[in-house]
């Protein structure tokens, strides 16, 4: 299963969500499918995409928030899973692309390649709904289900360690950040 195919399979569903991604392949691939003002790419600060999604979800409880995370980032902020579980915002969907690798820095294997079980960690942290998916079809079904559900969900998507040819996009970090905030403020006015 390729991450880009997963992203493509749910892209049309993202229109009315606030989307936060981690850096590297996830950001570049989502951007390559077509940037939208409701997408924020956290191009550093590994581990904090989930915390950002939690902050958004706690402040905007009626708003659907999607976080596209990765195994390397989640492993840097395992405590963040317990914080998410503690407050369990109903409309937060946390998707972890697990390619068992720190791909963008050269493909070094992470601990999920030697048996660390992110689904088990998420479940034991208290995340109410957790699933692991291994096919695009199951990915799309799990994400769609979570997006129409009313419970904090973490989905572990096992993907191949393959990424895009380049990681830098033509969208400046600050432009993305200001556009994202302005988009949210416009939603609040409408």
């Amino acid at each position, binding site marked *: 299963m390729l991450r880009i195919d997963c992203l493509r399979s749910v892209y049309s569903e993202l229109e009315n969500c606030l989307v936060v991604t981690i850096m590297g392949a996830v950001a570049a691939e989502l951007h390559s499918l077509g940037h939208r003002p409701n997408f924020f790419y956290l191009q550093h600060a590994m581990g904090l995409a989930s*915390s950002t999604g939690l902050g958004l979800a*706690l402040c905007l409880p009626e708003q659907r928030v999607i976080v596209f995370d990765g195994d390397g980032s989640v492993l840097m902020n395992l405590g963040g899973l317990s914080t998410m579980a503690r407050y369990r915002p109903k409309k937060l969907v946390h998707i972890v692309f697990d390619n068992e690798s720190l791909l963008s820095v050269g493909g070094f294997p992470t601990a999920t390649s030697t048996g660390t079980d992110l689904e088990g960690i998420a479940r034991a942290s208290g995340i109410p709904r957790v699933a692991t998916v291994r096919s695009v079809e199951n990915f799309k079904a799990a994400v769609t289900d979570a997006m129409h559900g009313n419970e904090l969900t973490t989905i572990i998507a096992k993907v191949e360690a393959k990424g895009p040819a380049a990681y830098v996009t033509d969208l400046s970090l600050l432009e993305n950040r200001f556009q994202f905030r302005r988009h949210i403020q416009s939603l609040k006015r409408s």
Partner: protein
Amino acid sequence: MPVSLTNSRLIFDALKECDIRLVSALPETWLVHLIRLADEDREMILVRLAKEEEGVGISAGAHFAGLKSAMLMQNHGFLASINGIVSFAHLYRIPLLMLVSYRGSLGERDPWQTQGGNISEAILRALAIPYFCLDAPETVKKRIRQAQTLAESSLQPVALLLTRDLMWEE
């Protein structure tokens, strides 16, 4: 416990007057009353963290959502947050109002706090984070207002160091 309830309330009321609506916190002795006040206030969203660096992401999310937030942490928690501060708050120009208990400074009895006290201000200066030591109750309201104003206008982290003189009654 001789943590000053009077001055904790003064700080909390000042945060409320600045329209702070979300507080992230990791408990430590000096912050116990502040965290309880935030917990008991129905208008305040309190996020209890596992590690202080999460608070950078929480505050960024709040900023995007249009809510003003503050972070309560010990100076060792500030040290644990540095990558988040640099590679999120500085990189993306996120305003952070950080209230940092200044452990390990003059009068500190706990040996384990003393190294953090030695280097907190030097690290803040190295990171070019504007900071101010809060030690006099009569200046608390004004300084919190000023720090919040600067964080919002400059879109960057600003720190207030909560000193022993302010937080501890003995």
